[in-house]
């Protein structure tokens, strides 16, 4: 390769390459972006695996996430403490799953987590309503929101419990043609 970088050991980079969908160059670039978010917290040298986390507020201001209505949920579902503070591992993990090389099944699992606002492993009607309101910025009338959520549950719910379990969600998303974005 080119110049010898000193941010990660080779072993670390190998591990990252195996555990994510990124190449070495991309991982180094990600580290650059991570460092930019909070230069005073994030060290340049990761060889001894420092334990630092960038807070949620800084991450959701990244240009890639800024316009996304689910940005808070995305960051929260990848963080270990559930509050949205990401260590570098979680940061890389998040972008790996969101990248275009991640397979559909993996994205479906995380999409379920993102849309599950109350984190109860089911997409109940309130979750759907919140999703819809975030998407349309509350421009639909409440009756319309109600109707749309009812119809969505009606379409995807297979076991008849009026909410979507992961199996329902996965079954539906595997047939949704627009999902991969």
């Amino acid at each position, binding site marked *: 390769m080119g110049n010898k970088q000193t941010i990660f050991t080779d072993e670390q980079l190998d591990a990252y390459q195996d555990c994510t969908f990124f190449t070495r160059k991309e991982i180094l670039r990600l580290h650059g972006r991570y460092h930019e978010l909070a230069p005073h917290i994030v060290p340049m040298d990761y060889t001894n695996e420092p334990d630092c986390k960038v807070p949620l507020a800084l991450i959701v201001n990244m240009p890639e996430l800024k316009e996304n209505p689910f940005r808070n949920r995305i960051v929260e579902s990848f963080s270990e403490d559930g509050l949205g503070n990401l260590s570098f*591992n979680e940061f890389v993990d998040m972008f790996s799953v969101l990248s275009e090389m991640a397979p559909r099944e993996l994205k479906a699992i995380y999409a379920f987590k993102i849309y599950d606002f109350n984190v109860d492993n089911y997409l109940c009607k309130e979750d759907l309503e919140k999703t819809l309101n975030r998407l349309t910025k509350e421009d639909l009338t409440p009756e319309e929101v109600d109707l749309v959520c009812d119809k969505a549950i009606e379409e995807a719910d297979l076991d008849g419990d009026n909410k979507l379990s992961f199996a329902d969600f996965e079954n539906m998303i595997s047939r949704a043609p627009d999902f991969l974005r």
Partner: protein
Amino acid sequence: MDVDAVFYTDHSGKVTSNPLLDQLPSYQSLLYRRKSSNGGTKRRASSRSQLGSSGSMKLSTVNRQDERQKGQTLQRPIRELAKTINEKRTYKKQLDEACELSSWGQWRQNTRRCLRRMKDEARGFLNSLKLWRGDIHLIEGMFGPGILSYFSFLRFLVMLNLVIFLIMFSFVMLPIIIAPHASVNITYSQNNGNVCSVYTSSARRGLVVFHEHFTDLLSGGGFLEETYLFYGYYKVDKIYFPQVTYNLPLAYLLATVAYLFLSLIWIVKRSATGFKRNLIQDEDRFQSFCNKIFAGWDFCITDKNAARLKRSSLLYELKTDLEEERIKQKIAERTRKERCRIYLIRLILNLFVIGVLAGCFYSIYLATIYSQEAQMNDVKRNSHIDLIIEYLPSIVITLANFITPLLFSIIINYEDYSPAFEIRFTLMRCVFMRLTSIGVLLFSLWSQITKCKEGTCICGYNHLLYSCWETRVGQEMYKLTVFDLIIIAAVTLFVEFPRKMIVKYCDFGLVRWWGQQEFAIPQNVLEIVYGQTICWIGTFYCPMLPAICTIKYFFIFYIKKVSLIKNCRPATRPFRASSSHFFFLGVLLIGLALACLPVTVSVAQISSSQACGPFVNYSTSWEVLPYTVAQLPNGVQTILYALSSEVFAVSFFVVTCLAMFYVIALAGAHKRVINQLREQLATEGRDKRFLIQKLCQAQGIPAVKSPLSKSQPLSRNRSSPSYHTSFSSNFSEGVFLAHSPPHSSTHV
């Protein structure tokens, strides 16, 4: 609290008995796929952490069993597992330690890893080589996937045309170019001296005025006529290379068949994925709510305006869907009288549409005949008027294609269909109009070519006026292509830019209603499919046309991109990327089918011209094939004759039909099975809930005897299943309940 007591295992090691939902194997397998230590929110911190720890203990047993299975069955790459990075790294370490591979195994694993990395890098490299990658990314970010699909379609057509040109070039032009330099013998097509072989070309001789060059460039006549551009120049019959005799007419014919076939295969291959998905499920179902809610947002959007637009387009789509539901209701409630009235209106309007189409086609026919006759009369008026007359068919076609979509979109409003159907139906009408107008042009050309004063023509065509009719057809196709490009550039420059200027600087009511230009994807797609159909038809008569079309599409890309970025706002009626893929390729296939028809007819039916071109020695262009076959060795001949006989054709047809019916039956059976399974799932869900109800009721009874009597009133309340609450609350109860009597009567 001894948590392990919650899990009762019988001697086989499987978890049984405690029937609460979270402990079911199906749920456990889901857990395994998810992060085990999901940080709790306030409500469920306690139960969650219990579940977490017990879950992870359970997980580790499951883990080890599954690992062994996994190692044997499939080597799923680690990065595809749904775990955090830390877990993946520990899992990887576990795997590495658990597998005591020999050095051979290690080496194999390492090579596999290296190969995978090389494949990733190669893929990255190939992606960066793709034409216009940066531009298309930019467009995608600003306008979304609908418009992106238009531009990647354009890129596909550029590639396709380039490949077609390479085919024609390497098999037809290259031998002719090489032959003089390789000092081999060449035989030219014989001029047998009869009246049919007199070639009166309109190429200019002597001193040529400069502006006539320009006119020639635009009309394909003059100095361009006797060049590689047109069919008439290819007079070579056979080239005698040292080892092989190169039969040029055969090569010309086979190259034509090859490029049509190649286009077909490439398009079908490209549309295969979208088609499969559309066949398996109903299309209606997934232009639907779930798709929009969960998959509607484009996670790649980074621009604030684009986000706002995406939001409003999603809103629009949802409102349209709700509207459609309402309309469906309305349609279902229509009375008989209303229905009759609507059918009558539709009939009248359809007749009107047919009348309009017939009128357009007739005017194209008249324009072509007038243009041909005026050119033949050879009266040189003003060169500008001459040019206009030459371009008259193109002008009429373009005008018709401009007016009819407007007309159709007005008419469809009165026909009272549902909005989605309206869009599709208008599109179908426009497609039909565009592609059939080319057919009408060709038909009128041929009627001219085969019309002789004496009734039937001696040579099969009108040799006096059209001594080299293929070149004339080629010239018409060339003119159509050039005119298409000019119109696209002109419309962008002279209509869209001024419109943007006007909208920006003048602010009164009418102008604001007219609004900024929207990038109408269907109309633009029809434009380029129209151009591509012309290219397919014209390549037989004008072998360099694919190269011209490649350059044309290249320019169109940049023109459209600039127009899009500077002038347009994204359409308020969003065009779904998923179905549009199918739409583009479907229309392209229709264009290809329509292009094959004239080429086939002219190759097989119409006598090739005797004065020019490679097929002078044959009565029709197709005849070169039987002629060559007759010269092959006997064995091969009999095989080929058998292949082309009716017996073979009929049996092939029957076999294909049988295969098709089988596949259709299979698809139908699968659909039925899917429906049955879906019902079964619903029933299973109901069974599960019923059983849990009963078990919770049953568990409520022995709890009376348990020392933890405090939990008793709670347990009675909780045992009435309201399954809209989370199961984890039931679970915490279950922990307490099951804890005390390990061998209670509830234990099955």
